[in-house]
C-alpha cells in the first residue's frame, strides 16, 4: 500500500514540476508576495502630510510645530495663509491633517489657561485619521508635560503608565508578517490539492486511475500528499524569512508552531480534496478554491480583528481554519506560547480537517461506484 501511495505521489510531483511555468508559479509568487506584502501591510504611519495654519505669533505654537517636525510620523508640507486653504489641502489630499492655531494660542497659555489647537483630519480613511490623531495626541501630551515642568505647574494627581507586552513598540509588521505565513501557505496548498483530482477528471485519466489496483483511500492520500509537502515547505520557508529577513522574534516553541502548521495543512487539504471531488473540471475546482479562499482570508482576523465583526459573522469564522492558525502563529511568535495555551485551536482545526477529509472520501467513493 505504501509503495503504491509513494508511486502516485511521485507521479503527482512530476506532473506539477515538469512544466517550467508551473514550477515557477509555485516558487516566485510566494516569495514576491512575502516581500511586497511584508513591507506594504502596515498600520503604522510615516511621513503623514501635515499643513499648518498658524495665526499665533507666540513661541508656543512655534515650539509645538517643531516637535511635529522632529517626529518621523509627520512631515510638514505646507504653510497656509487663510481658512479657505484648509478645505483645499484636505479635499485634494495634499495633507492628511491640518494644525490650526488661533491668534490667542500662546497668550492663553501664558495667562495660565489652556491654549487650543485645532486638528482637522481627512477622514476618507478614518483608520489612518485616527492613528494620526493618536500620534498627535502623544506629541501634544509630551509637550504639555515639558511646559508644565518648566513653569512649575501642578502635576496631575494620577498618571497612566502604559506598557504593551509582546510588542513594546507596537510595530504592526510583527502582527501582519506572521499572518502572511498562514495566508500564503493556504493559497498554495489549497490550489494544488483542489486541482489534483479535477485535473484527472478533465483529462479523462481518472477512469484509468480507477482500473489500477489503487484503493480509493490510496488515491486520496497520494493526491493529498503533494499539496501537504509543498505547503509544509513553503510555510517553513516563510517562517524562516519572517525570523531572519523581517526579524520577527520567534519566542515560543517550534514544536507548538509546527503542530499548528500540520493541523492547518490537514484542514487545508481536506477542504481542497472536497472541492476537487465535487468539481468536474479544473475551471470549477479553481472557482471553488477561489470562493473558499477569498472569504477565508478576509474573515480570518488577518487584517481586521474578528472581535469587531457582528456576532453571526464571528460564528461563521469558527469554520475557517485560517482563524485558528493565525492565533497559533502569532501567539507562538510574539507571545512565546507553548502548546498548553493553544490546544483548543489545534482541536478545532483537526475537527475541520477530519470532517472535510471524511466528506471528501465519501464523495469520492460515490463518484467511483
Amino acid at each position, binding site marked *: 500500500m505504501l509503495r503504491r501511495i509513494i508511486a502516485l505521489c511521485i507521479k503527482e510531483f512530476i506532473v506539477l514540476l515538469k512544466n517550467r511555468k508551473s514550477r515557477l508559479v509555485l516558487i516566485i509568487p510566494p516569495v514576491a508576495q512575502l516581500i511586497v506584502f511584508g513591507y506594504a501591510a502596515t498600520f503604522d504611519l510615516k511621513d503623514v502630510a501635515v499643513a499648518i495654519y498658524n495665526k499665533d505669533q507666540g513661541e508656543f505654537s512655534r515650539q509645538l510645530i517643531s516637535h511635529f517636525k522632529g517626529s518621523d510620523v509627520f512631515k510638514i508640507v505646507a504653510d497656509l495663509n487663510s481658512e479657505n486653504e484648509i478645505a483645499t489641502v484636505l479635499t485634494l489630499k495634499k495633507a492628511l491633517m491640518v494644525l490650526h492655531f488661533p491668534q490667542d494660542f500662546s497668550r492663553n497659555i501664558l495667562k495660565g489657561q489652556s491654549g487650543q489647537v485645532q486638528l482637522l483630519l481627512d477622514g*476618507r480613511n478614518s483608520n489612518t485619521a485616527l*492613528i494620526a490623531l*493618536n500620534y498627535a495626541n502623544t506629541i501634544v501630551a509630551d509637550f504639555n508635560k515639558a511646559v508644565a515642568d518648566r513653569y512649575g505647574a501642578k502635576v496631575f494627581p494620577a498618571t497612566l503608565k502604559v506598557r504593551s507586552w509582546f510588542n513594546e513598540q507596537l510595530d504592526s509588521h510583527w502582527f501582519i508578517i506572521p499572518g502572511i505565513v498562514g495566508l500564503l501557505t493556504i493559497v498554495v496548498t489549497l490550489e494544488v490539492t483542489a486541482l489534483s483530482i479535477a485535473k484527472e477528471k478533465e483529462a479523462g485519466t481518472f477512469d484509468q486511475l480507477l482500473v489500477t489496483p489503487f484503493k480509493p483511500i490510496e488515491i486520496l492520500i497520494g493526491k493529498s500528499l503533494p499539496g501537504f509537502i509543498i505547503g509544509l515547505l513553503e510555510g517553513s520557508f516563510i517562517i524562516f524569512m519572517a525570523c531572519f529577513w523581517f526579524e520577527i522574534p520567534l519566542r515560543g516553541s517550534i514544536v507548538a508552531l509546527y503542530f499548528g502548521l500540520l493541523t492547518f495543512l490537514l484542514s487545508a487539504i481536506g477542504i481542497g480534496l472536497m472541492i476537487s471531488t465535487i468539481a468536474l473540471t479544473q475551471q470549477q475546482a479553481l472557482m471553488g478554491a477561489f470562493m473558499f479562499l477569498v472569504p477565508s482570508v478576509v474573515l480570518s482576523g488577518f487584517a481586521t480583528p474578528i472581535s469587531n465583526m457582528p456576532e453571526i459573522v464571528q460564528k461563521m469564522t469558527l469554520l475557517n481554519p485560517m482563524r485558528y492558525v493565525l492565533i497559533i502563529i502569532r501567539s507562538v511568535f510574539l507571545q512565546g506560547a507553548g502548546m498548553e495555551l493553544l490546544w483548543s485551536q489545534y482541536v478545532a482545526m483537526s475537527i475541520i480537517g477530519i470532517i472535510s477529509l471524511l466528506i471528501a472520501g465519501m464523495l469520492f467513493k460515490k463518484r467511483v461506484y
Partner: protein
Amino acid sequence: MDTSSSFMRLKGLIKKETIQIIRDPSSIGIAFFLPAVLLIIFGYGVSLDAEHVPIGIVIEKPSHEATSFISGFYESDFFRPKIYPDAKKAQYSLMNREIIGFVWIKSDFPKNLLSGESAPIGVILNGVDANQAKIVSGYITGVWMKWLSAYSKDKALSIKVPIEIKHRIWFNAAVRSRNFLVPGLIAVIMTLIGGMLTSLVVAREWERGTMEALLVTPVRIKEVIIGKVIPYFILGMGGMALSVFIAIYIFDVPFRGSFLWLFLASSLFMLTAIALGLIISIASESQFVAGQIAIVITFLPAFMLSGFVFDINSMPLPIQWITHIVAARYFVSILQSLFLAGDIWEIFIKNCMWLFLMAVVLFLIIKKKSHKRLI
C-alpha cells in the same frame, strides 16, 4: 478594411456572446450574485471599529477613588470591563486572549492620589495586534482624561492643561470605518469579478474547441476581442451598479458625488479589470498556472496594495512604485472621494488618467499576445 462589414461581424459576435450569457446563467451569477454576496459578507465582516472590548481591571484594594476611576470604563460602549482581585489572574487571562489588556490600580492608589506626587496607574496591553492595542490605548487615555477633569473639578484643584486639542475628522465625522471600507471593498471585489468573468470566457472558448471555429471565419482578432469585451463589460457594470446600491442602501454609506462621474470611473476601471482577465487567460496555457496568476495578480494586490486598508504613503518607496500598477489603487481613491467627499475634479481626473493609461497598455498587450496565438 471595410468598416460596415466589420461592424456587421462585430454585431454578430456580440449577439452570439449575449445569447451564450443568457443561456449559461453561471456568468450572470458571477456578475451579480457573487459581488452582492461578497460585499454583504465583507461589509459586515470587515470593520476596524471595536466595541465592547474585553478589558481587565485589577483592583488590589477596593476604595472610593478606585471605583470613581473605573466608572469611566463602564460608561463607555467601547469597553466591557472585567474585575480582577490581583494582577496574576489578569495576566493569565491576557495570555489566554480573554482580555486585550488590563488596568492595574494598586492598593496604595488612594494614598498616592493625595500625596501631591502623581499616582501611577499601570496599563498593560497585549501588543500582538498592534493596531488594536494602539486604539485601545487611545481610549484608555480618554477615560483617564475625563476622570482627571472631573476629579480636579471635584476637589477644586486648578489644573489647567497647557494645550488642548480639538479635533474634527472631515468627511467621516462619526469615524465609521465601514464608510471607507465598503467603497474600498467594491474595488477589491470588482477586480476579482472582472478578472474572473473574462478569464473564464476565453478559456471556455478554447476548451470547447470553438476558438478554432471562430478563427476560420472572416472575423478579425480585434473584432473577437471587442466582441468579448462589450457584453462582459455590460455585465460587469451591472454588478458594479448592484454593489453601489448595496453600499448606499444596506450599509448606509453616504454618497456625495455624482453618478455620472461614478459611471465614468467605473467604466475605465472595469475595462482594466476585464483586460487583465483576458491577458491571464491568453498568457497561460494550463489552468493551474492561470489560477495561481489570477489570485496573485488580482485579489491579493487589490487587497493589500490598493490603499483600501493599508495606507499607501506609509509604505516603503519601492513598494509605493509597485502600487502604481495596481488598478484598484486608483479606483479606491476615486470611490472613497466620490462616496465621502463628493466630486473633486483634481482627484478624479488624476486617477482616471492613470486608469486610462493602464487600460490602453493592457489592451496593447492583448493585441500583441493574441496575434501570436492566432497566426
